[in-house]
Every structure is written in structure tokens, then in C-alpha cells.
């Protein structure tokens, strides 16, 4: 469903992502972990089409995202690490804007917006301008916008930043539910608890290279052989 083949990104002499290859299957929840500056956000931005890779290939639902970017992106949803939305639009207008970008019908947008506003408990804020929102409210609207067009792949960068515990719970449950429905989720996070709770597979990136990849049973096995904490594994691998 999501495949990265020998993906490399260089910024001048600096190699941010180095020959990265991985595959995330349909319905798989993939946690992408790594220390600061490891190349997580760069990888995610390349998948989302915000950064052009220096070399390598990206396949989304079997479509070459570099050769046919528009077709590939129509199956994709991206949630950035910083919740930037147009300040002068209301949340509802932003959702309609995203719906338009994905060429959705107005009736379908209306139906989905009503559901998502209710689901993420956005309430009356949806008709206020974004400039009046808190960071968490912006994050809720952005996550809602990602689910608007029923994507097959969700790429999400640090989803819990700025969310209160209740909102975080809703987001976690929604993502898990989507994964069960067959949506592929590629999530970058610093929160090991979140990764452990949600992910079927965890990949660890360091200095732009994928240094380890574990499925749930392997993680459990590894934890049992140590102090029972994912944190120890992470620290050991990234030191």
C-alpha cells in the first residue's frame, strides 16, 4: 500500500534520508520513530509530496508518486507536525476547501463535515475563524480534514502535539479504527507509549537510515528479554 524504495534526500552535502526502503501493508499501523534530526519529517514530507527526493521511489497504492503525483495523492491524507491553517477562514470553510481540492461533491462534504465536527467534538468553534483557535483545536480540524475524503493511506507527523488527553484519546481511537478498516497508517511520533499502544510495526530511523524494524510480537519478545520497556530498546538502538 505504501512502499519506499531506496529513498534518499540530500540538502547540499547533508544526507537527511539515506537509501531508505520499507513497505507498509494495507491496514497496517506503522510507527516511525527516531531521535531528533533523524529524518522522520523529511521522509514524511517526501511521501506527502512537499519535498522532492534526490533519488528513489515512492509508491502509494501501487502508484508511482513521483511519476503520477496527483493520482497518488488522491489516496493519501497528510497531517503535518505543525497545525498551520489559513487564519482568515473558519474551520468549516477549511474543510470545504480541502474537500474541493479532493474534488468531493458538496453533499458528501456536508455529510462528512457534520460527522467529523461531532466526532472530534469541535462544536461551535467550527464556524469561528482559525485565528481564534488554540493549537489543539487547529490540530483537531486538521485531523478531521485528513479523514474527509476517505483516504487509503494516512501519513501523520506527531499527531498528539497540542491535544488534551480527551482529544488525544479520540484521535488514537479513530486512527486505530481506520487501521482496522484497512487504511494504512504511517505515523511519526516521539511518544513511545503512543507507538506501543497503536502500532502493528515500528521502524526506527537514525541518521537517515532505517536501523531496525519490529512487529508487535518482536517488540514484546525484546521487551521481555530486557526491563519490559520499549524505551530501553529505543535508547539502546539510537545511542
Amino acid at each position, binding site marked *: 500500500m505504501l512502499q519506499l524504495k531506496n529513498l534518499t534526500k540530500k540538502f*547540499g552535502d547533508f544526507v537527511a534520508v539515506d537509501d531508505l526502503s520499507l513497505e507498509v501493508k494495507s491496514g497496517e499501523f506503522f510507527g516511525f520513530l527516531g531521535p531528533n534530526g533523524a529524518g522522520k519529517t523529511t521522509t514524511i*514530507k517526501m511521501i*506527502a*509530496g*512537499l*519535498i*522532492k527526493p534526490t533519488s528513489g521511489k515512492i509508491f502509494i497504492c501501487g502508484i508511482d508518486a513521483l511519476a503520477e*503525483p*496527483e*493520482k*497518488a*495523492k*488522491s489516496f*493519501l*491524507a*497528510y497531517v*503535518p507536525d*505543525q497545525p*498551520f*491553517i*489559513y*487564519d*482568515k*477562514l473558519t474551520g*468549516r*470553510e*477549511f474543510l*470545504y*476547501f*480541502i*474537500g*474541493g*481540492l*479532493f*474534488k*468531493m461533491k*458538496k453533499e458528501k462534504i*456536508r455529510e462528512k463535515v457534520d460527522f467529523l465536527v461531532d466526532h472530534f467534538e469541535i462544536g461551535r468553534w467550527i464556524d469561528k*475563524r482559525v*485565528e*481564534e483557535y488554540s493549537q489543539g483545536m487547529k490540530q483537531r480540524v486538521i485531523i478531521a*480534514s485528513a479523514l474527509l475524503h476517505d483516504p487509503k493511506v494516512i501519513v501523520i507527523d506527531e499527531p498528539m502535539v497540542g491535544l488534551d488527553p480527551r482529544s488525544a484519546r479520540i484521535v488514537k481511537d479513530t486512527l486505530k479504527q481506520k487501521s482496522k478498516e484497512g487504511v494504512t497508517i504511517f505515523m511519526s511520533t516521539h511518544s513511545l507509549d503512543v507507538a506501543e499502544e497503536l502500532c502493528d510495526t515500528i521502524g526506527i530511523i537514525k541518521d537517515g537510515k532505517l536501523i531496525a524494524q519490529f512487529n508487535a510480537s518482536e517488540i514484546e519478545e525484546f521487551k521481555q528479554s530486557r526491563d519490559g520497556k520499549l524505551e530501553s530498546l529505543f535508547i539502546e538502538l539510537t545511542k
Partner: protein
Amino acid sequence: MSEVVLILKYKLISIFKSALDSKWGSVLKELASIFVFTGFALSTFISSNYATAYLLSEAKIGLFLFHRVLSMLLFVLFVLVSLGNIIVAFSTLYKSKDIEFFLTTPIKPIKIYVIKFLDNFFYSSSTMFIFIFAILLGYGSYFMKPPEFYIFSFAGVIVPFMLMSASLSIIILMLILKLSQRFDIRKIAVFAGLIYALAVYFYFKSTNPMKLFTEVMRYYPYVDQYFAQLDPSIAVYLPNHWVAEIFYFSARGNSEMVMRYFLILLSATVGVLLVNFGVARKLYFDTLFIAFDLKNRIKKRFEIEILSFYKKSIFHPQLEVFIKRDLKTFLREPSQWVHLLIMLVLVLIFIASLVKMRLYRVEPQILSIAFVSIFSFNVFLIASIVIRFVYPLISLEGMSYWSVRSSPVKLTLLYLHKFVISFLPVLLISEAIAYASVFPFGKDPNIGILITSVSFFVALTYVSLGLGMGGYFANYSEKSPVRIASSRGATITFLLGLVLISIFTGITFFPITFYFQSFKFNVEFFKSAIFVSALVSVTLSIFFNCLGLRSMTKDF
């Protein structure tokens, strides 16, 4: 005072550090900027020197008339600096990120004000300084002035003159904000804009350039004399008049009168500055909180039903949401629509003056000068509108650009949309001015065809320039369109725009001069001018649009 010096010191360090970035790309950009600025200063110097020599030695309009024209230009400059300062000052003094930080420190608000006032003044006037200094050099070298003339004229005359304009505008801004507690700020802003427009209208109505020209020319060849009796009574109270008088008496070697007007200018500047700081001491702190809270106090919001996202549209869904998003964000950003309104009022005043102007029984040489002046001013207006509204368009995608870039949107469609929404209004304004420009020449259809055709290509070239360069220098993290339009990239674009003015003026100058001098309509001359304009325009437009489109696909 030590805090002010400390903050200014670190501001300068930060400016120099970013200017002296050692990356190759930055070095190239710096070199390109230096090249453009130098070329611009040089061409301004040559143009200024040539214009002074032409008007005084060839057209022989005399020292008095020459300096009255200068006075009118200075009036326009005063208004432009003032307007520019009001709009940039709102961003710098009230909206910049460091204000909130300064407020948490034990620095007195008046000191914050002084720092931001200086920041604002030099930020919005830096290009103007280069421009004016180059003009001064061109002017002074005609009169073979010594080096101290330039220092005195620049530091002693021009800087106080501009400081006065900047101070006045910020006083007005603080009063607008204070009044917004009682009245709707949008109404006050429109009212202030109308006052500016009326001031321009009444100034030109009272000075009546055509009448002044005819009156002075009756005394030909004794046109260097001092015809103060022809000045409107209001003139003596205006700073542009004092500056023009300083230059007039300096050209005539009357140092006593130079000193007299210099003292008047200096005292008035000190007076306005004192009032400025006095008002700031009383109002700045208050108005800061009024500005912070501004968006919450606008109760009744103006909405246009057709722009509703919920309405169905005949456009392609992606195009539809781009149009609605851009128009909505434009109408919801006061600095955008207020500035547009002011510019449109100024354009309307200009059109109204052109429609009323008649150049009968005038020498062919003067007719050519009049045509060139009107045409180059038309292009200048278009250039200004483009820099202010088209240049920021790509940057205004802002940090939310991720939402477009990660969607199944062809960036060509987005670019095309930006081009069309810029080109259509600019073309409309350009053609309206072009049409009005034919009136002074007895609605001559031949001139009409030439100027309207060339104006089409002017609009095409300038929109492409604005959009292309705006993309190349895109700064997605800057939210304020005003600051984007006064950034270094915008300055370079504006300077390129000024070079284009001389190219388009040059193209039209020869057929028009031949036409006025021989009273023969040479169809080949006119056709060639239109063809050359088209060629220049299409070539440059392809280049700049490719640059803009390429820039939109850069890593985000």
C-alpha cells in the same frame, strides 16, 4: 536609553548576519541584488541628470517651473511615504512577533515605540533613500554642486522631510486605533483613505499645473525668476514646498533663503517628531492592546454570499475553492482591501485629471514630454499595484501551503489561477488609464490604439514579473502581505519594474515624437512599436512565469 541601544545593536547584528550568509545560493542572491541595486541607482542617476538637463537646457522651462514640478513630485512622495508607513507601521509596531516578547520585559512602552518607529521608518523607506540619493546626484551634477551639497540635501533636507511624513502617518495610525474603540475601524480606515485622496485632489486642483505652466511661459525667456505670486496660498504651509524652495534658492545661489527654508523644515520636523513621541507616550501602550483585540471587536462581518464554500459553482472544484479562498482571505484582511481602496481612489483621481486635461496649441516637444510623462506614470502605477498585490500572492499560500501540496492538485492550475486573478484586474486598470491618457491629446484615435495595445503588454509583463519574482523570493512564513511587498525581493522586483518602465516608454517615444513633430501618422512606426512591445512582453512573461511556476514546486 541603554535598552534601546542594546536592542538596536542586536537587530543590526541579526541583519548583517543574515546578509553575510556564506551559502553559495545566498552569495549569488546577494551579488544579484547588488547588481540590480547598482544598475538601478546608475540608471536613476542618468535619467535624473538627463531629465534636469532636458527640461532646463532643451525645453527651457526655467528654474521656477522646474522646482514647482519638483515640489509636486515631493508632495506625491510625501503622501506615498505616509501611506506606506501607516500600513507597514501597523505590521511593525503592532503585529510583529517581538512586540509580545518586549512587553514581558521591563522596557518602557515608549522605548519599544522608538525602536519600532526607527525599524519601521528604515524598513519602509530604505529603497526610497537609494532612489532619492541617485536623483539628487543626477540633479546636483547638472548644477555642478560640491560634495557637501549632497550630504546637506540628503541628511539635512530629505531625511527630515521623510521623517515628518512617517511621523505624521504613525500619529494618524494611533488615532485610528484609539478611535476604533468608539467606531468601526473599517469605517475610520475608509474615512482616512478618503481624506488622503481628497488632499491629493485639492492639492493638484489648487496648484493647477497647466495654469501655472501657461502663466510662467508668458514671461519667456525670463522664466528663472521667482514667481511666488503664482503659488496657491496653501503652498507655503506644505513641507514639499519648503524642500523645493531650498533647492530652487540653492540653484540660484541664494544661501540666505536656503537657510531660511532649511530652518523652517528642521523646526517643523522636530515639532512633528515631538508631537509623535508625545502622542506615542500617551497612546502607544493603549493602542497596542486595542490592536491585539481588534479582530474580536469586529462584530458584524461582511460576507458575500456567492463566495460561500457551501454554494455550488460552475468552476472546476479545485479552481472554485482557490478562487473562494483567495477572495475571502483578501476581503478579511483589512491591510489588503484598505490599501486596494486607497490605490483605486488614487487611480480614479488620476483618470479624472487626465480626462479633464487638454493640451491644445502646445509645442510638439512639450507634447512628447507630456506623453512620456503620462505614459511612464501609467506604467509606474501598474508597477506599484503589481508589487503591492501580485508579488505577495505566492508567499501568501503561507505555512498552510502543505494542504495544497499534499492534495491531488496540479500546481500549474494553482499558478494559472493566481495569474488570471491578477491579470484581469491589472489589465482593466491599465486599459482604463490608457483610455483616459488619450484625452489630453484630443482623443486622437491613433494614439489611442498605440497606448491601449502597449498597455495590454504592460499588464501582461508586470503581472508575470510580480508573480514570477514573488515565487522566486517566496517567504511562506511571513503572514503580512505588506511586509512581503516591502521585502528585499519585492524591492528588487520593483527596481526591475522601473527598468521596464524605461523600456516601454522608449518603445513608444519614437513613433509618438515623430507623430507630434510631423503631424503625420506613420502606420509602420506604430505597428513596429506594438510589435516590439509584444515581443519584449511575451519573452519576459514566459521567463518570469516559468520562474514562478518552478518556484512553486520547490521543497516546502
